[in-house]
């Protein structure tokens, strides 16, 4: 059962690293732990016979998006969370409201588990259906992407262009400002 062992290893790694992302005070450590979590997730994608998604996860997420985050953290001089003063004065930090928020979070988890229990196929093995060679090949992914999802793919390019223009416009210094 090497596959089962690998699944639990990488699933545990992804969950622990993500939980630690939330727990860090320094955003730099958070980003490094999130890259660890993305590496574990890409291993899970390989277990799911999706090597294209696994590589895209490493290249796009860990390679591009996280480096963007790292640059911004370094650019902004990595400010620590100035929590102490806000925490004491902020109305959301009063015990009553905090307890209410914790209750809502617990409710979300209960609701998700209840929904998952009711999924009929949840106990069937995930790799049972379909032809593994056809599902895992980049050729078949590309064929479906450029035929059935052609319009969505082209719309994606417009989205990236708009995001790029917006980012440049938002981050540019106004003229006359130092």
């Amino acid at each position: 059962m090497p596959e089962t062992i690998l699944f639990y290893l990488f699933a545990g790694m992804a969950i622990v690293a993500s939980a630690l992302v939330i727990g860090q005070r320094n955003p730099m450590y958070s980003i490094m732990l999130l890259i660890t979590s993305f590496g574990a997730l890409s291993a899970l994608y390989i277990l799911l016979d999706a090597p294209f998604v696994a590589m895209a996860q490493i290249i796009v997420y860990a390679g591009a998006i996280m480096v963007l985050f790292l640059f911004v953290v370094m650019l902004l001089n990595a400010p620590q969370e100035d929590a102490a003063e806000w925490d004491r004065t902020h109305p959301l930090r009063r015990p009553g409201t905090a307890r209410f928020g914790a209750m809502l979070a617990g409710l979300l988890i209960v609701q998700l588990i209840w929904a998952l229990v009711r999924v009929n196929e949840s106990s069937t093995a995930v790799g049972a259906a379909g032809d593994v060679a056809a599902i895992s090949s980049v050729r078949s992914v590309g064929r479906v992407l450029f035929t059935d999802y052609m319009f969505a793919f082209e719309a994606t390019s417009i989205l990236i262009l708009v995001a790029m223009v917006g980012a440049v416009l938002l981050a540019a210094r106004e003229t006359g400002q130092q």
Partner: protein
Amino acid sequence: MIPLGHYLVVSAVLFSIGTAGVFLRRNLITILLSIEIMLNAVNLSFVAFGRAQGNVDGQIITFFVMTVAAAEAAVGLAIVIGLFRHRESLNPDAFTLLKW
């Protein structure tokens, strides 16, 4: 073989962690990172469902989610830089005015 439900549970746990991060943290960058965790949790369930159905559509949706995540990170971080320039803070509670 691993049941589909196991992947869905991992996805649900990751999504809950991301939600908790958005609500608990008082740092704009960590909040954006939590949103990335939530997007990844959804990606995992898409790929797992696609594998269980035996087609590649789940992987393709994941590709689009990644594109949206890249656009969201670029614009979100540009906004964070703009906010930091005005207030010298990353605490979302410092940005309570619509105009300054």
